[in-house]
């Protein structure tokens, strides 16, 4: 069973009878990225809710859809959380020791939404690179979460899992930056800044140069912020509220 037919099966049978054939034809026309996958899953949820709400007929409803705007907001929020977590990690502000890891894990989860929302065009040109960046970030975020929970429950032995997971997730951002830079659909300087911010921590730990870490956090934050703001601007509403 292919990914396309699996996605199609997420829709109600009634919907598939009417639109299934042409929908599958559309899906075969271009590579599917994380953006398309989320958009289709939200579309399937919308179809399920609409058909349940009105039996055999399609009903009105506010609906759900994936957009650049969602990705842009997630990029700003996720990078902001990670930057705060990073600076708290330096001990600049004395807070409960669990706050920084919680912010970091939450930020990584939000960045996954950002990656999906901002990768629609890159996935058409570099689908493997985009999927790799998404998968690496997801694996890193999951390991980071597992490490955090393990540290809280079983002690410092799990700290290394948390650390390696977080670094893996950073590598995901670096791959996304490369895809974005090569595709040039969003700002190349912002993608370059994000790439530098994602790679500098590895250099910092490799050469024991902790001084690099604040610079890395700032580059990472500004890179994601710039991409997020650009995405939100691109997704400006076409119509004033209530016009359509």
């Amino acid at each position, binding site marked *: 069973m292919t990914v396309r037919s699996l996605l199609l099966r997420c829709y109600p049978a009634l919907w598939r009878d009417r639109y299934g054939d*042409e929908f599958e034809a559309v899906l075969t026309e271009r590579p599917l990225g994380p953006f398309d996958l989320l958009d289709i899953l939200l579309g399937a949820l919308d179809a399920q809710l609409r058909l349940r709400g009105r039996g055999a007929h399609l009903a009105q409803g506010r609906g759900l859809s994936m957009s650049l705007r969602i990705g842009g907001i997630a990029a700003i929020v996720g990078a902001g959380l990670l930057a705060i977590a990073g600076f708290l990690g330096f001990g600049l502000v004395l807070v409960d020791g669990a706050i920084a890891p919680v912010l970091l894990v939450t930020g990584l989860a939000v960045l996954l939404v950002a990656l999906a929302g901002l990768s629609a065009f890159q996935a058409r040109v570099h689908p493997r690179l985009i999927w790799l960046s998404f998968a690496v970030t997801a694996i890193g975020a999951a390991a980071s979460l597992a490490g955090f929970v393990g540290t809280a429950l079983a002690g410092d032995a799990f700290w290394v899992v948390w650390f390696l997971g977080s670094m893996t997730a950073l590598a995901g951002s670096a791959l996304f930056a490369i895809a974005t830079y090569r595709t040039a659909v969003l700002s190349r300087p912002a993608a370059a800044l994000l790439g530098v911010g994602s790679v500098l921590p590895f250099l910092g730990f490799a050469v024991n140069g902790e001084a690099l870490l604040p610079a890395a956090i700032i580059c990472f934050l500004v890179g994601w912020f710039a991409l997020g703001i650009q995405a939100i601007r691109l997704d400006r509403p076409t119509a004033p509220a209530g016009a359509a």
Partner: protein
Amino acid sequence: MRTKVPEFGRYAEPSLLILVSLSDGPKHGYAIMQDVEEGTGRPMGAGTLYAALARLEEQGLIEPLPPVDRRRPYRLTGVGASNLAEQLRGLSEFAQMGLRQLGKT
């Protein structure tokens, strides 16, 4: 006489973009997505496209044509064309009002 513009909620904007795309002739789903993306610089996923198409078809603003190689083209109906004109007039009035206000500052 002003025609009533249906409420499409979250799909109001994709629906408007689809109607505009179909205004120069029938198109199938993938061609609509390409047209919208080229015209706006924003991605349109297949999930959003078909959620909006279903609402537009249900409201009688578009109608399906016989499929060609599994690709089914859609075209504007008469009601769809007048609804689109109504929406575009509303947008134009809104834009003119904004421009007038900018001119006053």
